[in-house]
C-alpha cells in the first residue's frame, strides 16, 4: 500500500481581488481575523491525517513560503513526509513556468514518485471550507474509481460560474462542462480531486504531449478523460460550507459571515481546528466606553472606539470615538480617533489619521477597474497612510504604499482612486 499525497495548487493570482493580491498570492490573503486562505486546506489535510503535502507556488510566493515555513503550526515538520514547497524550476530544456494546474502537477511527478504516492489529492490553496478528505477517499475506493471529484449543488442561476458535472444514478460522471452558458445540472466541481496515481500519471503525460491543451484540470484533463473514455470518474457530493472567495465582495461577505450568531462556517469546532502561523500577541483589549458587538476582535487588538459587524485582525488599533462598521481590518492597521468607516477592507499595516470618513456618499462606478472594485466596498492596499480629515466615498480604491502626499485634496469622490506616484 502506497501513500496518500496532497498537492495544493497555490500559484493563483486572484486578479479580481485587486490590491489585496497585487503583492501576495491569493492563498496568502488574510482571512477571518488571524488566518490566511491556505490555512484551511492545510488544516483539512492534517485533520484528515494526511501528512504528505506539496504546495505548488508560482505567483508572488514570498509571503506564502514564509507563512508555511517548514510547516510547524500544522505539525507538518516531519522526519518522514511533511510539507514541501514546490516552485517552478528550470528544467533541462527550458525555463518551465507552470502552464496550468495539470502542468504544475505534471512537473512534480517526481515528488509524487519519491513519496510513493498511491492516491493523489489535488486541492486548491484558496478555498474556505472544512472537509474530512477521508470521506472523499472512502467514496473513491468504494466506487473503485480512477478519479473522484468533490462537487456541491449550487443554485442553478450560479451554475455557469463553475465546472458542472452530469452524472448517472450511480454517481459516475458522464459529462462535464466548464462554465457552461446553459448548465444541464447544478452539480458544481469544487476543484478538489482524488486520483489513483498511476492513472493520473498516464493522463498527465498524455496531456503534456497534447499541443492543443492548455494543461488545466478543469478545461483539458477532465474533459479529455470523459471524451476519450480513459477511465472512470465519480462525483462525490459535499454538503458542507465551501467558498471560493474570488471577488472582493465575496471575500468581504465570507469574512462577515463569521460574525453571525450561528455562522455557516464554524471556526470554534474543537474537533476541527484551523491552524495558522501567527505572531505571538497578548489578548484583545477593549477600553472603557467602547462598544463592540457582532464582531471578531483578534489578539493584540486594542479597541478604544466602537466596532460593529466587523472582523478585526491581530494587533489592530482603533482610536477613541471611531466607528468601524461592516468592515474587514487586517493585521496591524491603525485607525485614529473620531473616524467613521463603513463597508471597507483595510489591508495590513495601513495607517488612518484622525477624523477620516470612509465608505460614505453616493454610489458611483469605479474609474480604475469597475469589474474588480464594486459592491459598494472601499479598499485600501497594504502600508498606505491616509491623512487626517479625509472624506472617502464608496467603490474607491487606494493602492499599496500610498502616502499622504498622494492625496490631491481632502475629498475622494465615490468611484475614485489613488495609486502611488511612480518612483
Amino acid at each position, binding site marked *: 500500500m502506497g501513500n496518500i499525497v496532497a498537492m495544493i495548487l497555490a500559484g493563483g493570482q486572484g486578479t479580481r481581488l485587486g490590491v489585496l493580491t497585487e503583492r501576495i498570492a491569493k492563498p496568502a490573503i488574510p482571512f*477571518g*481575523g*488571524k488566518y490566511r486562505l491556505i490555512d484551511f486546506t492545510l488544516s483539512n489535510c492534517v485533520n484528515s491525517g494526511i501528512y504528505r503535502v506539496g504546495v505548488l507556488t508560482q505567483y508572488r510566493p514570498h509571503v506564502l513560503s514564509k507563512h508555511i515555513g517548514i510547516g510547524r*503550526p500544522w505539525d507538518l515538520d516531519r522526519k518522514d513526509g511533511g510539507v514541501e514547497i514546490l516552485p517552478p524550476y528550470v528544467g533541462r530544456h527550458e525555463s518551465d513556468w507552470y502552464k496550468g494546474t495539470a502542468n504544475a502537477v505534471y512537473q512534480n511527478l517526481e515528488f509524487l514518485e519519491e513519496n510513493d504516492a498511491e492516491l493523489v489529492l489535488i486541492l486548491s490553496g484558496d478555498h474556505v471550507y472544512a472537509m474530512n478528505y477521508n470521506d472523499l477517499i472512502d467514496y473513491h475506493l468504494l466506487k473503485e474509481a480512477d478519479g473522484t471529484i468533490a462537487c456541491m449543488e449550487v443554485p442553478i442561476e450560479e451554475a455557469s460560474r463553475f465546472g458542472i458535472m452530469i452524472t448517472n444514478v450511480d454517481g459516475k460522471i458522464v459529462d462535464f462542462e466548464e462554465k457552461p452558458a446553459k448548465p444541464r445540472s447544478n452539480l458544481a466541481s469544487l476543484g478538489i480531486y482524488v486520483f489513483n496515481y498511476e492513472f493520473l500519471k498516464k493522463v498527465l503525460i498524455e496531456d503534456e504531449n497534447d499541443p492543443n491543451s492548455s494543461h488545466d484540470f478543469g478545461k483539458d484533463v477532465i474533459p479529455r478523460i470523459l471524451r476519450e473514455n480513459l477511465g472512470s470518474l465519480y462525483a462525490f457530493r459535499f454538503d458542507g460550507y465551501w467558498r471560493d472567495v474570488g471577488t472582493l465582495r465575496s471575500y468581504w461577505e465570507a469574512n462577515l459571515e463569521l*460574525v453571525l*450568531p450561528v455562522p455557516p462556517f464554524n*471556526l*470554534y469546532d474543537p474537533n476541527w*481546528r*484551523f*491552524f*495558522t502561523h501567527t505572531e*505571538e500577541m*497578548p*489578548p*484583545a*483589549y*477593549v*477600553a*472603557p*466606553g*467602547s*462598544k*463592540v*458587538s*457582532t*464582531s*471578531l*476582535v*483578534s*489578539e493584540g487588538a486594542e479597541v478604544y472606539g466602537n*466596532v460593529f459587524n466587523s*472582523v*478585526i*485582525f*491581530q494587533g489592530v488599533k482603533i482610536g477613541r470615538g471611531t466607528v468601524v462598521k461592516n468592515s474587514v481590518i487586517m493585521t496591524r492597521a491603525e485607525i485614529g480617533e473620531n473616524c467613521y468607516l463603513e463597508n471597507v477592507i483595510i489591508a495590513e499595516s495601513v495607517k488612518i489619521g484622525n477624523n477620516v470618513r470612509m465608505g460614505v456618499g453616493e454610489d458611483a462606478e469605479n474609474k480604475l477597474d469597475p469589474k474588480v472594485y464594486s459592491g459598494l466596498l472601499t479598499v485600501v492596499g497594504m502600508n498606505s497612510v491616509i491623512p487626517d480629515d479625509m472624506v472617502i466615498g464608496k467603490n474607491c480604491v487606494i493602492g499599496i504604499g500610498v502616502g499622504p502626499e498622494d492625496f490631491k485634496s481632502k475629498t475622494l469622490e465615490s468611484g475614485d482612486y489613488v495609486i502611488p506616484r511612480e518612483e
Partner: protein
Amino acid sequence: MRVLGLILAGGKSDRLWPLTKVRASAAVPVFGKYRAIDFTLSNMVNSGIRKVGILTQYNPRSLMDHLGSGKEWDLDRKSGGLFILQPYVGPNREVWYRGTADAIFQNMTILRRGEEDHVLIGSGDHIYKMIYRDLFSYHLKKGADITLLVKELDETYNLSEYGIVQLDDDMRVVEIEEKPAHPKGNIAFLGVYFMNKELLKELLYATVPQGKYDLLLDIVIPNLDRLKVYAYRFDGYWRNVKKGIKEYYRINMDILRKEVRDELFYRNGKVYTKLKDLPPPKFTTTAVVENSLIADGSIVSGTVRNSIIFRNVRIKVGAIVENSIIMESTVVEEGAVLRNVILDKNCIVREGRVIEGDIELPVFEKRAVL
C-alpha cells in the same frame, strides 16, 4: 557572554490556595493566556540565554505540560535548550529539595557541564520584563562576585514581605534583612542573582553539605563581607504573584492600565507562551465589553467590565461579569452575575447564579460547578 539560566519554580505557595491546589505557583495563569513563568523565561530567551534549567518540585504536571519541549521559547535545541530539573532518587541521596541552594546543588551536573561561565538565577513567580544584558556588563564593570537585582518599592508593597537591602554609595550591598518586621529602607531584593558559575559551585560545596540549604539566607547573606555583592537597580514594573490572592488579583487588574500593558507586552521583547490554536475572540450581537482583556477562542454574549477573560471562555446572554478573573474554558451561563471573583479553569456557573465578592475575593477551584 555565555550565561546559564536557572529558574526556581518549585514553590508551593499556600497563599495562592486554591489556585495552587493543582499547580506550582510559577504555573498560575495570568493576563488571559500566560503563566507566571512565561515572563522570566521570555526575559532569559530575549536576553540571548540559550540554556535554561527549571527547578521544579511542587506539583509540576501543569508546569511541565505548559513548557513542553520548550518549542514556544525556541528552546527545543540540539545544543543547550530547556532542562527540567526534577528532584530524583539516587544512590545515597535525599529525594526532595530542602531549599533553593540544595535544589541547585542536587543538579550540580548542569553546572559542571556546558561552557557557560556565568549563571543567572531567577524565579518563576515574578512578573516583569527586562533584558538582562545591562546587568551583565554592570556585573563585569563592578568586578562583582554576585550581582543582585533590586528595586525601590513604593507604598503599594508590604515591605516586611520582601528582602530589604542596605547599599553603600558604590551600590555594594552591606546588609540584607529578609522579611523584616520593621524595614529600615524600601529597596528590596527582587530574587534575581547573577554570578560566576565556578563561584556558585564553590559556595554550594562549602554550604549545602553543612546542612544549609537556602541561597539567600545561607549563602549570600553570611558572605556579604567577604564577597563583593553589588546591587543593580530595576525601575520597571515588578510584582510577585506568590504574595497572595490579593496581590495576584491586583497584578491581573494592573494589566488593564495602558502603561502596564505597553511595558509588559510590548517592551523589551515579546512574552512567549504555549500556543493553543484557537480562533479570534467573538463578540456577539448582545455583547457589552468595557475595560477588559479577552483572550482567543472566547465568545462573549453577555456583559464584561473590568475583567480578565482567559481563552475559550463562554459568557452567555444576559450574564454579567465585573471586576473578575475568569480562567480558561469556563462557562458563565445565561443571566449569571459574577462580581469580584476569581474562577479557575473549566468552571461552570449555572444560569441565574449570583456570586459577589467584596474585599475578600472568593476563589473557585478548577472544575467547580456553581
